[in-house]
């Protein structure tokens, strides 16, 4: 997904939008941006500063600067939850743990190149279960017991689930088991950061109440979730962009280092 947040000079949100990234690499970033501008009734020339973040950050030609989603999530989350000390971001591609002190990122961990413990894990397994990703949370609440998923590998977990389906294990129990598997894997990883409250959970998977509960249980701590967990990275990027623009203005420097065009993204150079 491509997300856009546009802030005004005071840091007030003018427009926030979640659009598709599209299967053809990342061709749609400029279109989502155009939609967000239209909603705020703004022209691109009126935008002072653009920060691109996330996996596609280096493909956005109309950005002044690219900053990793690690720094952007920390910034966005801290603006919403000033007391945050640990943030967990589980998205479609990966899972991250962020250690935040006084609103700033001080350490982080990221999962390896493996789908287990990410949104992709659920994405792959809903197909096997014949469910939609957005109904998993509710369904898991009906579980009477949690199916223990022993494998941390997405493909092997799928085989385990198929075996349980054939034995007639109720769907809610399987789904609750999947949520537990994600929580266990992610908590194991972020323990390296020495988890301290307040804990905030963000990213697409934070919309799943089942994973929120599983995380709280595994951590033994309360977990806060932003109203729009998909947007904390974009919000952080916008906040950092605002700071950078204001800093340049205060120092009397030009805000843009290059001319920006609202074009289709460019791609990695292929050797």
């Amino acid at each position, binding site marked *: 997904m491509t997300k856009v947040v546009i802030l005004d000079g005071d840091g007030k949100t003018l427009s926030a939008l979640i659009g598709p990234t599209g299967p053809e690499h990342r061709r749609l970033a400029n279109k989502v941006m155009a939609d967000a501008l239209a909603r705020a009734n703004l022209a691109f020339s009126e935008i002072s500063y653009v920060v691109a973040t996330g*996996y596609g950050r*280096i493909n956005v030609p109309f950005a002044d600067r690219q*900053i*990793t*989603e*690690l*720094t952007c999530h920390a910034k966005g989350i801290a603006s919403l939850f000033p007391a945050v000390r640990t943030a967990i971001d589980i998205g479609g591609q*990966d899972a991250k743990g962020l250690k935040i002190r006084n609103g*700033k*990122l*001080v*350490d*982080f961990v*990221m999962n390896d*190149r493996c789908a287990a413990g990410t949104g992709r894990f659920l994405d792959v397994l809903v197909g096997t279960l014949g469910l939609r990703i957005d109904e998993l949370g509710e369904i898991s609440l009906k579980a009477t017991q949690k199916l223990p998923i022993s494998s941390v590998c997405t493909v092997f977990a799928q085989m385990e689930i198929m075996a349980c389906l054939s034995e007639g294990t109720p769907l809610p129990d399987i789904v609750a088991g999947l949520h537990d598997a994600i929580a266990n894997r992610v908590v194991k990883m972020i323990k390296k950061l020495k988890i301290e409250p307040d804990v905030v959970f963000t990213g697409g998977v934070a919309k799943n109440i089942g994973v929120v509960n599983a995380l709280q249980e595994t951590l033994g701590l309360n977990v806060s979730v932003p109203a729009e967990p998909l947007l904390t990275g974009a919000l952080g990027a916008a906040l950092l962009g605002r700071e950078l623009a204001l800093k340049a203005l205060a120092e009397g420097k030009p805000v843009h280092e290059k001319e920006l065009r609202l074009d289709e993204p460019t791609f990695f150079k292929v050797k």
Partner: protein
Amino acid sequence: MTVKEKKGLVRAKELYQDRSQRAKELKAEGKKVMGYFCLYPVLEIFTAFDIVPFRILGDMGEPITKADSCLPTIVCPFIRSALDLGLKGRYDFFDGVVMCHSCEVGEKAAHIWRIYMDPSYYHFLDTPHTVHAPAQQQFKGQLEDYQKTLEAFTGKKLSAGKLQEAVATCNKQRVLVRELYDLRKSDPPLISGTEIIEVMVALMSIPVAEGSDLLQQVISEVKERTDGPQKKPHRLLLWGTVIDNTALVEMIENVGANVVMDDTCVGSRAYFPMVEPTDNPLDGLSRRYLVDIKCPRTFHEAAYGDTKKDYIKDLEYRFGYLKDFAKEWNADGVILQSIRYCDIHGYDTPGLQDYLNHIGLPNIYIEHDYSEGALAPLRTRVQGFLELIG
């Protein structure tokens, strides 16, 4: 001989991209070319026999296809890659190979190499893993044996004078490498981390004296040029497993940092220790190779046999040189990189991170599969690390 006319960095890049070209030329002229594995087969001994030493490396850009037929996939990908190249015939120009007990896998790879590649000369150099006096004596004895097998193979008797000459030749190259590394101390450095790898890989593909000529050309070239590396917000020290490919450093240098110093075996670890000239050159050589090369494959500790250890003192003894590197080259962060499944580096990582944290040097550990294509996920980690050190 138009190829040889290319100089300095262009020549280094050419040798980096096509490592065997010069060795094959020399072979055609009648010289012997010997492949060697890891840093321990003594370069001075090859040089004294007028043998072209050629370090066996892998290729991060080449998918491993043949090695999987003789090795499981859960072993060191660097060794798998080197073996893969061997199986594909890329090292067919060798007249022989010298393998060594570098690490456990290095030792096992020696067997595999001998069985599958069947070189006409093969020697396994038993390299102790500790540095105390009996180990040095043992290693010296191994070097004597190694010299004898080469005497038998070449039909030439080696004099101490010849070996002493070779010590001087190799030391001269090491002084030049230091001189080149000194040019990384300025901000911006006069030579990039990417270019350094090209030069170091080139050095490991040609005779030592030719390498020194190349170094001299590179040194004058980078001192004079005006289009060297740009100043960047961060200066990094890179520690870890073998890096014989520019892709990783290029990625790091593209996200806002210059790699200004390294501690890897295709870098300072291979060239900084000097050989002290001794009456019997093998004394100086065994000390330099076994004790002074600081590779995690060797067990180093502050007080040998001391059962009540001071952890920080021990770390200082093992890793203190990295503090000096960071200070002299003015690095503001350290990237600890490891090829997946590298036990020797993996086990040194916790102590090294404790030490770096103790001295307040920001650091991050990253691991990779020894594959060019799989580096993209590391970009976010490295860039995130640079963002949090400010």
